[in-house]
């Protein structure tokens, strides 16, 4: 029988009430960060979807320009709102304390920024470029928010999956030139990841992601190969004539 179990807490109540406050503060901050991170994720995914909705024929034009501009603005908004919220919750040591709470969002943001960057320039968004874009996002102490190397790298692994989807869409839509350059791009990233040392902060996720990356790469190379093999069946001159006969064609005229 423990006579006081029902209500009192003995002398340790004060201490535990103080612990409760500390734990609640930490938990609430973590939840705010998780929410902000989720907002970053959702908004970033929308940007990625928008890139996939770009005309896949590679023809460019005003509509594409506008869509790219809109996506750029959307990313800007993510930085100004949700990532700003993340930054302001973090200061000094809190960055690492809560990194698991906001990492998913930051990785998705890197993925979105990088996929847009690739759609515009055909180049890889660098770590420096990604951090430069974030330089305006500051915490309470005026310190600029920086991506961890791990978040940047893990975001880039997912980028390759998106590039694969772009490649398949391009081929599906008849854009025969895109797959080859995308294969070269993803091949280079894949090779690059092999020179990154397998440190503890990456190891947990990276091995699986690299397998996924390899299968994306093989998918793009196969698509590129099919385009090449089919394309090589007839002399280019013949193709041009043949396709010119069908101006209403859904196929890419610049093949």
């Amino acid at each position, binding site marked *: *029988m*423990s*006579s*006081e*179990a029902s*209500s*009192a*807490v*003995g*002398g*340790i*109540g004060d*201490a*535990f*009430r103080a*612990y*409760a406050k*500390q*734990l*609640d503060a*930490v*938990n609430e901050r973590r939840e705010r960060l998780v929410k902000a991170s989720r907002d970053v994720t959702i908004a970033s995914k929308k940007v990625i979807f928008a890139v996939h909705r770009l005309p896949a024929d590679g023809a460019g034009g005003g509509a594409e320009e506008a869509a790219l501009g809109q996506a750029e603005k959307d990313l800007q908004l993510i930085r100004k709102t949700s990532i700003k919220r993340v930054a302001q919750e973090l200061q*000094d*040591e*809190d*960055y*690492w*304390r*809560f*990194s698991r709470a906001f990492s998913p969002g930051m990785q998705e943001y890197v993925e979105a920024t990088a996929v847009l960057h690739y759609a515009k320039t055909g180049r*890889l968004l*660098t*770590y420096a470029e990604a951090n430069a874009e974030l330089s305006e996002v500051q915490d309470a102490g005026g310190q600029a928010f920086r991506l961890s*190397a791990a978040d940047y*790298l893990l975001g880039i692994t997912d980028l390759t999956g998106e590039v694969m989807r772009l490649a398949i869409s391009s081929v599906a839509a008849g854009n025969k030139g895109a797959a080859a350059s995308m294969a070269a791009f993803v091949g*280079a*990233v894949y*090779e*690059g*990841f092999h*020179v*990154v*040392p397998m*440190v*503890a*902060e*990456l190891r947990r996720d990276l091995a699986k992601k690299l397998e996924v990356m390899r299968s994306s790469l093989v998918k793009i190379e196969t698509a590129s190969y099919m385009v090449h093999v089919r394309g090589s069946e007839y002399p280019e001159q013949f193709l041009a004539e043949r396709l010119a006969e069908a101006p209403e064609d859904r196929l890419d005229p610049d093949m």
Partner: protein
Amino acid sequence: EDILTLFEGFRGELEASNAVREEIKAVSQSMDAETRKMQAALMGIHAGTDEAVASAVAKVREHLEPLRTLNAQLAAIMKQHPGQYYRYHDIWRHVHTSCAFLVAFVHWLEHGTLLTHAQVESELQLRHEEFGIDLEDYLVGVCSVSNEMPRYVVNRVTAGDYDCPAKVASFLSDLYAAFRLLNLRNDFLRKRFDGLKYDLKRVEEVLYDVKIRGLQSRSQPG
């Protein structure tokens, strides 16, 4: 080629972080060895007699100084990496939990009261603002104290101390109520807390055994 250079640029940054990690791990492993010895010594309490308890407590106290030194080493490493306590926290989390368990249990054996978070840190000569013990690690250590209680009570009663169950039941009951004040969201800590209920239940059963038989400690006047 370009991209390759870019990725090679990460080598330095990542390897530096790995080196810090290895350095911390080395100290942590020494701490782990130390706390294992202390836990082995502490198990002496289960012989159940007053002398056995006193002797076990004394042995644990002997190891306290090396443990403080190792903690100071960890603090020194982390001083060179300000703001990264939680980057490497997972490495020493387990040993800090053991530290909290050991000093809190020894204190309870000596004084019958719960050592606070701040007291645990000062017992280990840590300054919280520099390099402290995470609050949740402290709380997990306190749960471990509770987990040891049923066995302790059983062995004390076996050795003839019939007052122990009531004392422990009261302590655990308070502790259980105190934990209920916390809004536990951390899954691991919550699971450990769930174990407290079983500790208390077992101690209550021992108390019941003693009461129903009207047993009283020999040393007692009554």
